[in-house]
């Protein structure tokens, strides 16, 4: 450190220009190291605390790979692994094209009611995942309103899982793809049009390659989301076992942490693959929005707009109808035998001792997580993407940031228990408080926020940084005065995404909440377990409406306030 100070002072005396470079490098180093430390603390160490158990027997002795051998020789493994991969692949293949054209309709066409369609696509994210399970049972279950549509096939099993997972993963893909399609250089299209290129050819040579990075990210996000989710297979999977329910069965059914850790490690594989593919793609990605770019403004075109509008209405309508049924179910007295409507399901104190209290705790959690998390994630993504110093550390941080996506909440939650509750850990102070819930939730949803930030940052030409450097403006000024304003829509997207997920998350926090910090999402699970299905749907509806209000506020802000900051896009 003292040598650094000396070097700075030497530099000061010689060249003013050099001083700036040295100072900037140090600040960057300190920030990147701080980022790495934070990520190690909130992601790597807790994960290690649980995953290291995979090498131990249940009474804590080191047994090497014995647990992996046991697991590999269990007959159910191969079928669970195969089931998980099948379900995740099918869901990805269904969701990505739908999400792409949906996002395309929102960004590259002139269809009406874009805001409403955007909001409709995000509804599944607004609702606790249990609600989609309940909704599908109301609609397609053995007593469902549209049971005949299933043509005798049972909802419980692979069909139900794929439908529910597609609903659940759709908004995540749309969120990434909307960002990917948001920025595009209109000059390319002008040139193509001037050269008489056909629309089909323009789509394949300009639109798709431009969105390539977003498409691949979205693909991996959907795949890993589906493979790690255990809530939907648990509720609607019937007899169909997947890796995530195996982990649940080991940990919650049999308290076998070593085996749970083994499954957790298997589940990490897709994320590690995603990381390396991401690196490979990234190397070939060129910035779309150069400093000289002219933003593309879609022109009305009857045929295209009509087709896209039909698609958007079909998808958005289906989503709204399914969740609408669940909302209706929350007012029903005793489904399906007594369909009279009542408000008493919303008197939560009848089935939940703390009544509405968990709802307020959830709001607090969501607010704190969104503000702190967004600041951390966006700054982190900027440091990783835009600075040229310390490539190894940045690569490490990037790797950690991509990890949480692949970790089932169950694994992350238990890791937090093992790490933060260890008797030697001074941070144990926070255990059972709202703080640890906030930290855990940020870690849990880090990756999608990170990808959104990266997608948005990648589209800004590095020239901005180069110009700043030649004008001797340090990177933090560029960050504050150029990057943040340009990326403000993405930043708000991240904040809303985290806010909403903090409202609905269950799997990790169920091991961490304390007596005074019970969350609404957990109360929903408890009410459902206790057979109070309508009240569970009721609380889920309240959560969903809250999330939707936040989203509407976001849209309003986007239009009224950001409209001014973003006017350069539409000059």
């Amino acid at each position, binding site marked *: 450190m003292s040598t650094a100070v000396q070097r700075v002072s030497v530099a000061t005396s010689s060249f003013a220009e050099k001083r700036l470079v040295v100072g900037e490098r140090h600040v960057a180093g300190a920030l990147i190291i701080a980022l790495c430390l934070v990520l190690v603390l909130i992601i790597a160490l807790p994960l290690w605390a649980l995953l290291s158990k995979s090498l131990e027997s249940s009474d804590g002795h080191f047994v090497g790979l014995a647990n992996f051998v046991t697991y590999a020789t269990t007959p159910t493994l191969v079928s669970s692994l195969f089931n998980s991969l099948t379900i995740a692949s099918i869901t990805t293949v269904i969701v990505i094209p739908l999400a792409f054209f949906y996002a395309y309709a929102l960004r590259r066409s002139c269809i009406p009611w874009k805001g409403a369609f955007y909001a409709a696509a995000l509804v599944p994210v607004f609702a606790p995942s249990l609600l989609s399970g309940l909704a599908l049972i109301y609609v397609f279950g053995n007593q469902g309103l549209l049971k005949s549509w299933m043509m005798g096939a049972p909802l419980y099993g692979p069909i139900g899982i794929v439908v529910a997972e597609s609903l659940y993963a759709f908004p995540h893909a749309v969120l990434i793809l909307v960002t990917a399609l948001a920025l595009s250089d209109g000059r390319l299209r002008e040139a193509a049009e001037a050269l008489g290129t056909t629309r089909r050819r323009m789509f394949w040579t300009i639109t798709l390659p431009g969105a390539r990075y977003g498409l691949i990210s979205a693909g991996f996000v959907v795949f890993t989301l589906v493979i790690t989710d255990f809530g939907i297979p648990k509720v609607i999977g019937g007899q169909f076992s997947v890796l995530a329910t195996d982990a649940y069965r080991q940990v919650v059914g049999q308290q076998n942490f070593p085996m749970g850790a083994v499954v957790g490690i298997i589940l990490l594989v897709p994320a590690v693959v995603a990381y390396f593919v991401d690196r490979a793609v990234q190397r070939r990605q060129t910035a779309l929005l150069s400093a000289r770019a002219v933003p593309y403004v879609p022109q009305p075109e009857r045929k295209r707009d009509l087709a896209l509008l039909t698609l958007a209405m079909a998808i958005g309508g289906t989503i709204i109808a399914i969740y609408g049924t669940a909302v209706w179910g929350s007012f029903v007295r*005793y489904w399906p035998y007594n369909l009279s409507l009542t408000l008493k399901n919303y008197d939560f104190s009848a*089935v939940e001792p703390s009544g509405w209290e968990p709802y307020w705790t959830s709001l607090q959690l969501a607010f704190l997580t969104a503000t702190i998390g967004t600041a951390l994630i966006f700054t982190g993504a900027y440091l990783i993407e835009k600075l040229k110093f310390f490539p190894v550390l940045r690569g490490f941080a990037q790797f950690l940031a991509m990890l949480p996506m692949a970790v089932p909440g169950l694994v992350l939650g238990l890791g937090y228990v093992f790490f933060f*509750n260890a*008797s030697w850990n001074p941070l144990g102070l926070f255990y059972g408080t709202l703080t640890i819930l906030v930290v855990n939730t940020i870690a849990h949803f880090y990756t999608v926020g990170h990808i959104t930030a990266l997608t948005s940052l990648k589209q800004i030409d590095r020239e901005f940084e180069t110009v700043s450097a030649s004008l001797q403006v340090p990177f933090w000024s560029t960050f504050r005065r150029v990057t943040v304003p340009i990326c403000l829509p993405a930043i708000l997207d991240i904040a809303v995404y985290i806010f909403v997920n903090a409202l609905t998350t269950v799997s990790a926090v169920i091991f961490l909440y304390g007596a005074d910090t019970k969350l609404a999402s957990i109360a929903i699970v408890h009410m459902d377990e206790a057979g109070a299905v309508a009240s569970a749907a009721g609380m889920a509806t309240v959560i969903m409406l809250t999330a939707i209000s936040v989203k509407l506020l976001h849209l309003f802000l986007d239009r009224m306030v950001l409209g001014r900051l973003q006017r350069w896009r539409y000059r």
Partner: protein
Amino acid sequence: MKSWFTSCVFGAIALVAPTMAMAQKTKVTIYTALENDQLGPFKQSIEKAVPEAEVVWVRDSTGVITARFLAEKDNPRADMVMGLAASSLLMFEKAGLLETYKPAGVDKLKEVFRDPKEPYTWTGMDAYLGVVCFNTAEAKGVAVPSSWKDLLNPALQGKIVMPHPASSGTGYLMVAGWLQSMGETEGWKFMDGLHQNIAAYLHSGSAPCVQAARGERVVGLALDMRGASEKAKGAPIEVIVPKEGVGWEMEASAIVKGTKNLALSKKIADWGVTEEANKLYSQTYAIVASPNVKNTPPNYPAGAEAGMIKNDLSWMADNRDRVLAEWSKRYESKAAPKN
């Protein structure tokens, strides 16, 4: 400026004062799997009996709370556990996580509800049974079963759900119940037949009955009290204790080793064996630890106490891995393609 400062100080005192008055009470954290609606009355009754204690619940399903307690074992956060399956407490006892304490008056309880081994750590509260919930509205002519064998009726194919024994304690107590009461050979043979009719093994001890109550399934094998409460809410179900007898488990309580509130916890443990406490247990379960308390909750199946098989909890604990492995070999490898 000064008056602003003074008012702030007074404001702060005003805010803090009530908290200080409250601080006379010591918070006792109890991990529990009791039902949500039991928590309020239990807290009230405990705080009346032990006025210096303030009960703080951390409640979740048996599996989650057991996993959480074991995960926290390096640095336990709970002072007591209450209303948790005795099989979980046996696990905690084995791991040396429970304080040795014999509550005053425990000798008056039925013998089966007392920890049989020294050192004495846990005390049973009430028993819960694995029963049959049968939806009469969806039965379509199938008679209400009275024997386990009735569930082998081919008309019920794909209409029965039960808890997965590796995910749910209730599922395991049923499997263990059949193996103990019918003998291993007959027990497995029965399950082979039952498997033909099973639609799914679910990951919760309550869900099968909730599904039966909602007509999603015709038969749900589940916890007794869930059946009774669904029926009370208006579900067209019969809750049945088959005549061969049913497997059961008990809810129990214990003090956590290393608690900072040992004296208070002991008082609460003493409360747990009183008749007043047993009356509370009997609001939900028909069979409780005290021989003097008799109450059958509304819609609770008849003949429950007589239907309890001779159950050996330590047999259940010792044979769990073996039974689950055999179960998984028989029903999971070939179950996968069956949906």
